[in-house]
């Protein structure tokens, strides 16, 4: 058996990696411990969300699958932050936990060049620090040119409920017992991370009259930009909002020492994510808060479980019973799955390069939770990049490295490999300094070309995309070339929409700069006569309305790109640079940044260290 690329693990990272690799034309093998668990959603039943929804769009623009499958299997769609500016809008889909994995499996099975194998990988074939394939649990060796590890939370994972600790993957799946020790032997630093998931409640035992219904959007939205999908917005399944009660708080405080986290049952030094604290964490840290918000979310239309978002805990089962029953509408609720915390091994992501190939072993790529991230979208975003880059490397092509001003995926990977992480990393809009450029609405404009260049975006979609770009140009030109003259008629029209009258003729483009005027108004007034597709007009409108801010951010990005152009030679020896602060010397040696820009982003490296480094580089390499 011989493959170009082997992907280990078929979660969201593994699926995207395998599909990318196979679609680029590489003979690919995807190995998973349980085929029934391909692309499963072991935690929240949603895809997207703030910032994450933009990642899904980016995956779609690169030619990935996540967005398409979420579009096929959603129960509810919601555009978040629609009342705010275009830069922070983001789509979230509640998806069906039964059909989502099913659709993904179907896609994998129908994919040319891709073979699925149910087995457990326990070691890598390594020669001279280069990976040549994998070794299965039964000692079978499978050779390949590249290996991509996307093992999720399965490496030596422990499930914690109260004082109970059990070696197991999520939901009683088989854990990977040996691989992380092998990775340690090969020289990887292993981190121990922790996350958790809340209870699942039997739907028929919840009294929804005591909850507040949360509906989906009335407008149609979808992740995939190839086809504009339409659906009946009334048929969406609602979520429900409730709050914790005084009794909940009392129960938790009384039983605090029984929680795995507070009772000291968690491995010392294991760090859980701050954005995903357990309910006991929230009650202790924010003790002045009377109540905490919880969402009851549907998991599937094919079974009865509801997901209790916000109630993640590592309390023992009997306490969990009491806690759940203290909630509104849950007096008689039946818990179908108890909340648990999970501890697992990951590698320190600073050992990985921006192409996602590891620095320790050549031909080895890592993506997803093994790199210290959290979330399906973060995993999938890395997965597609790892798949693309492993395939490009086989063809001796330069890797695809998305920049911080190009994609959230670029921010994600750069943050991971440059700064490392001590807790599972979740994408937040606040991590993206150029978020105004990284919008939901322009993900296709930013990335379709890359997807096309690597071979994941096929000709028809690319042609369509090219056409859209042309239309944007045409519409923009139309607005610049057509003027409104200061006639009484025009000015009374402006008056009617509470806009100042014009004295000289004005282009439609400039008119649109006014806050109170938008394309829809001008269309209604029949001032804009040429009609383009909504997303074409939206692009031009955003460009006009926010040009001041966009220009400013573009300038900042240019500054960053200049720093990125200043390359640091691979063979640099930081020990030889006099006057570097020892912390900086240590961090620079460890992370080995490829550019000055990257060096600047390493925490603990100060501007004075950078000036010393620059002086040294100028001396050593220019003179």
């Amino acid at each position, binding site marked *: 058996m011989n493959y170009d690329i082997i992907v280990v693990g078929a979660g969201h990272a593994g699926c995207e990696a395998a599909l990318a690799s196979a679609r680029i034309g590489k003979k690919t093998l995807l190995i998973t411990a349980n085929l029934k668990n391909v692309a499963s959603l072991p935690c929240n039943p949603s895809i997207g969300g703030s910032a994450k929804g933009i990642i899904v769009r980016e995956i779609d623009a690169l030619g990935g699958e996540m967005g398409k499958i979420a579009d096929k299997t959603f129960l509810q769609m919601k555009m978040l932050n629609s009342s705010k500016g275009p830069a922070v809008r983001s789509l979230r889909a509640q998806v069906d936990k039964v059909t989502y994995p099913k659709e993904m499996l179907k896609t994998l099975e129908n994919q040319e060049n891709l073979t699925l194998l149910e087995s457990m990988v326990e070691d890598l074939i390594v020669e001279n620090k280069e990976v040549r394939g994998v070794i299965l649990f039964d000692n079978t060796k499978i050779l390949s040119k590249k290996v991509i590890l996307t093992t999720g939370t399965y490496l030596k994972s422990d499930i914690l409920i109260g004082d109970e600790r059990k070696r197991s993957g999520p939901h009683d799946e088989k854990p990977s017992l040996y691989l992380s020790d092998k990775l340690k032997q090969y020289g990887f630093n292993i981190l121990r991370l922790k996350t958790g998931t809340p209870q699942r409640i039997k739907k028929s035992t919840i009294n929804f009259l005591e909850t507040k219904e949360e509906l989906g959007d009335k407008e149609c939205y979808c992740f995939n930009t190839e086809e504009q999908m339409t659906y009946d917005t009334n048929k969406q399944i609602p979520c429900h909002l409730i709050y914790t009660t005084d009794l909940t708080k009392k129960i938790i405080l009384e039983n605090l020492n029984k929680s795995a986290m507070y009772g000291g049952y968690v491995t010392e030094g294991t760090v859980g994510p701050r954005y995903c604290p357990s309910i006991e964490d929230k009650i202790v*840290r924010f003790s002045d808060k009377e109540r905490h918000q919880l969402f009851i979310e549907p998991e599937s239309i094919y079974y009865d479980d509801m997901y209790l978002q916000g109630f993640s805990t590592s309390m023992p089962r009997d306490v969990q019973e009491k806690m759940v029953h203290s909630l509104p509408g849950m007096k008689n609720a039946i818990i179908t799955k108890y909340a648990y915390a999970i501890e697992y091994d990951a590698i320190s992501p600073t050992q990985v390069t921006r192409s996602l190939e590891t620095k320790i072993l050549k031909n080895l790529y890592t993506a997803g939770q093994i790199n210290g991230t959290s979330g399906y979208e973060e995993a999938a975003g890395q997965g597609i990049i790892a798949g693309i880059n492993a395939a490009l490397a086989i063809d001796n092509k330069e890797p695809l490295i998305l920049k911080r001003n190009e994609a959230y995926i670029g921010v994600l990977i750069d943050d991971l490999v440059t700064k490392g992480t001590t807790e599972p990393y979740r994408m937040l809009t606040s991590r993206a300094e150029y978020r105004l450029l990284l919008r939901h609405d322009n993900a296709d404009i930013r990335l379709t070309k890359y997807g096309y260049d690597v071979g994941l975006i096929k000709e028809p979609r690319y042609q369509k995309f090219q056409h859209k770009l042309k239309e944007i140009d045409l519409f923009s030109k139309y607005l610049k070339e057509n003027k409104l003259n200061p006639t009484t008629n025009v000015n009374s029209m402006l008056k009617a929409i509470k806009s100042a009258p014009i004295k000289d003729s004005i282009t439609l483009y400039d008119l649109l700069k006014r806050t109170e005027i938008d394309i829809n108004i001008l269309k209604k007034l029949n001032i804009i006569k040429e009609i383009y597709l909504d997303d074409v007009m939206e692009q031009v409108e955003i460009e006009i309305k926010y040009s001041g801010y966009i220009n400013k951010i573009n300038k900042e990005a240019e500054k960053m790109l200049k720093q990125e152009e200043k390359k640091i030679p691979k063979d640099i020896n930081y020990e030889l640079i006099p006057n570097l602060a020892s912390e900086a010397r240590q961090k620079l040696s460890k992370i080995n940044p490829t550019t000055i820009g990257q060096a600047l982003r390493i925490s603990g490296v100060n501007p004075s260290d950078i000036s*010393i480094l620059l002086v040294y580089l100028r001396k050593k390499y220019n003179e």
Partner: protein
Amino acid sequence: MEDTIAAISTTLGVGAISIIRVSGPEAIKIVNKIFDKNIKDAKTHTIHYGHIIDKNQIIDEVLISIMLAPKTFTKENVVEINCHGGIITTNKVLELLLLNGARLAEPGEFTKRAFLNGRIDLTQAEGIMNLIEAKTEVGRKLSINQLTGNVSNLIENLRQKLLEIISNIEVNIDYPEYEDIEVLTNKKIYPKLKEIQENIDEIIKKSESGKIIKEGINIGIIGRPNVGKSSLLNYLIEEDKAIVTDIEGTTRDIVEGKFILNGIVCNIIDTAGIRKTDNIVEQIGVDKSYEIIKKSDLIIYLLNNNEKLTKEDIEILNQIKNKKHIVVINKIDLKNNLEISENEVIKISIKENIGLESLKQKIIEIFNLEQIETNDLTYLSSARSISLLKKSKESIEKSLNNIKKYPIDMIELDLKECWNILGEIIGKTYKEELIDEIFSRFCLGK
């Protein structure tokens, strides 16, 4: 980076001792060549008595302090030579050091090295530069405050206020459905931003008095020829620096003198009499006077009690209307011929020593000098810091302008810019601060 620098670190000619500082990897080696004892293996932070010698000839009797890297001001090897022999020998010692391999340090280069070697941060570096330049006691206090981080605290407080708003907006973006977290709106943040704008304004105002402390107040004395400008200058600086004569137009050059008022340096500038004249040399003096009106922080316009107001007087009084100025009427011992509409005048007689104290009092009042001395001296005094502060004010003003036109996540971009600029002043712009703030202040989670 690796050469060794040397410079005289004390003001030449002031005080009994002059100190020469040598810093760099060769510091010990170079000094050893001109010292009559072997200090090659001297322990760090020790003082050695001996002589500086040049070809067996004793140049000076000195004390040498040896400080080895990294626990020194520059984090390099540092030797300080305490010379006792006055200007000429100190210069000779420096010359010897330069002959033996040291390079003359550029102004501020020790501080620059301290900064580049990570010994001090940017505000501290500026503080030290100010310390060197500080001319008076108050200036010295200001420098020390800057060093100990009072300035940083002041800016940090502002940044914290901004960070609270920014992180709240970010949380609203990243967790849009959390109803129990306050949703900030443009309307809600407006008064908060106004307050920050006012705070920045206040620091700018204070900082400008910080500039006064460091650089002093420039006072221009102007008036028609022979109204007693030079006499007034002489009285204020208590020395005969300007030539005082009765002949009109003697003072053609601008003569500077300094005096200290409540610890603040006042630079007095005497000017040529302003009048219309065909005399070329006079004309230059007149032009310079106008220039000085521009350059001065305060104009003292001097008139004679016994002379009527001329057209020129009215013209110049008009010219200085919008500047800080004091109208002073001299020669009140003589008969009054002057009629003036100015509501506040100081009446003096330099000859009879009348009213001069009230002139000084007026200057103190105008510049709030009493306040400056008693206030805690926490403001910025370097031009760089003040200009950054003004830039931060611009971005907060931008946010206030945009607040009616743009959604809050756009306004936040202006606030972030402001926050970053403030961070630049104190050398801090870590994004992690924001992420930390978000998670420590808000209760979020799945």
